[in-house]
């Protein structure tokens, strides 16, 4: 579980986050949504420890990140997996090398043990026969799968995904969404996804946090998002005609 209390983040004179508080539960896919510039990425980077909050507290299963020593922070980071928007795979390493990287850095496992673990997670993300290919030789969807495999290879407690569906076709996007949801439930981890993709919101959003201008505008489940009267949320989520109709159908069905 990740608890965020009154989080502020400023860059020079620009206040990006203005007191965000929320709780991300274990075993659930938690989604952060909001318009471009609403502070989603900064919020995620604060959770990851890449940005130091100007004010506020972030607790990982009761451990306050800001009060940990450098070593404790690094150890905690080893319990985090991150899927970056552009996958952020290491160009010079093969698929196998990328997934094996955290194991080589932080474990004392033998080469064969690491290979077994890598093959296991690559199978888990449905990637076979790609071990010796370089990131530039595989498709965007496959790169995302490799990034997910790398993120989960150390059995993390927390999984963060920054726009995991960006640049993917709708079908592959759904596959990636479902994969993240399955992994979250299977390994009972706390997953936080930063997304613009409304399909993801409807499919896997067990908890949704809506940010607007650096503030928490709304939070709830994917079912509650159909019923909310919050104008900012409805303007954002139901900006397309298709989703307006979906919402209408949902409400009629419930009535």
């Amino acid at each position, binding site marked *: 579980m990740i608890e965020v209390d009154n989080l502020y983040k400023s860059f020079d004179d620009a206040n990006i986050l203005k007191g965000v508080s929320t709780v991300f539960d274990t075993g659930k896919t938690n989604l952060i949504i909001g318009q471009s510039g609403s502070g989603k990425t900064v919020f995620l*980077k604060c959770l*990851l*420890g*890449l940005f130091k909050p100007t004010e506020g507290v972030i607790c990982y299963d009761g451990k306050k990140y800001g009060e940990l020593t450098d070593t404790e*922070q*690094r*150890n*905690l*980071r*080893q319990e*985090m997996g*991150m899927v*970056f*928007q*552009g996958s*952020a*795979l*290491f*160009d010079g390493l093969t698929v196998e090398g990328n997934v094996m*990287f*955290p194991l*080589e*850095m*932080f474990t004392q496992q033998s080469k064969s043990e690491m290979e077994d673990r890598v093959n296991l997670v690559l199978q888990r993300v449905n990637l076979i026969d790609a071990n010796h290919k370089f990131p530039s030789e595989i498709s965007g969807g496959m790169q995302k799968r490799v990034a997910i495999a790398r993120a989960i290879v150390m059995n993390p407690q927390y999984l*963060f995904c920054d726009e995991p569906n960006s640049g993917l076709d709708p079908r592959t996007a759904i596959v990636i969404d479902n994969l993240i949801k399955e992994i979250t439930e299977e390994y009972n981890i706390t997953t936080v996804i930063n997304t613009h993709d409304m399909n993801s919101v409807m499919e896997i959003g067990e908890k949704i946090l809506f940010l607007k201008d650096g503030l928490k505008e709304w939070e709830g489940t994917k079912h509650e998002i159909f019923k909310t009267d919050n104008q900012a949320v409805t303007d954002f989520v139901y900006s397309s005609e298709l989703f307006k109709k979906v919402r209408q159908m949902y409400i009629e069905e419930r009535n």
Partner: protein
Amino acid sequence: MKYLTDIGGYAIMVFDLFKKPTKWRIMKNLILKEIDELIFGSLGIIVFISFFIGAVVSIQTAMNLTSDFIPKNLIGFATRQSIILEFAPTFCSIIMAGKVGSFITSSIGTMRVTEQIDALEVMGVNALNYLVFPKIIAMMLYPFIIAVSMYVGIFGGWFAGVFGGFITSADFVEGVTIDFIPFHVTYSFIKTFVFAFLLATIPSYHGFYMKGGALEVGKASTTSFVWTSVVIIITNYILTQLLLA
């Protein structure tokens, strides 16, 4: 103010890159890879340039020997002194600032732009140690390149002098050996070690802390070349004052 911030940032980077060292098992491979790219990958251009610069120094010295009272062996002497004292350590370093420095800045900068450095940091890896430290160790073999440059440069001078008909081989060799002060080679290699450190760290600083996208990677490479050259030139003056004056 920006210069002060950069100098402070550079000092902090140098301090931080020794923290939380990467496992030797991994570091060993990184160092070997960097030696291949930074040292062996630069040999060709250095050999090529050194040969022709040595040749030009030899010809120009010969063309300026208008008095019969000046011995011909001065051509060999001037070539040796120019190559050992300045051309090999200093000007090769400027060339390397362009070749190796740009490569370091653009490769690290691209990793920054594509969030690969963020990925390392999220995993709890000291990205500075992982990326920059192997480059520093690899560049400690830079004196090897400079030794080759000295040899090839003097050989180029001999080749141009002898085959251009400016001097006999015996006179050139006599000039190369005459009044030889071994400390000049020591001085040259001391400079080389310092320049090697600068060549590894200044471009790394510009790549590691760059902000923006692909365009900024190009700008960072240019800035890195300019600043590495400037610092090398100033350091050259300071070291020469300290060691030879």
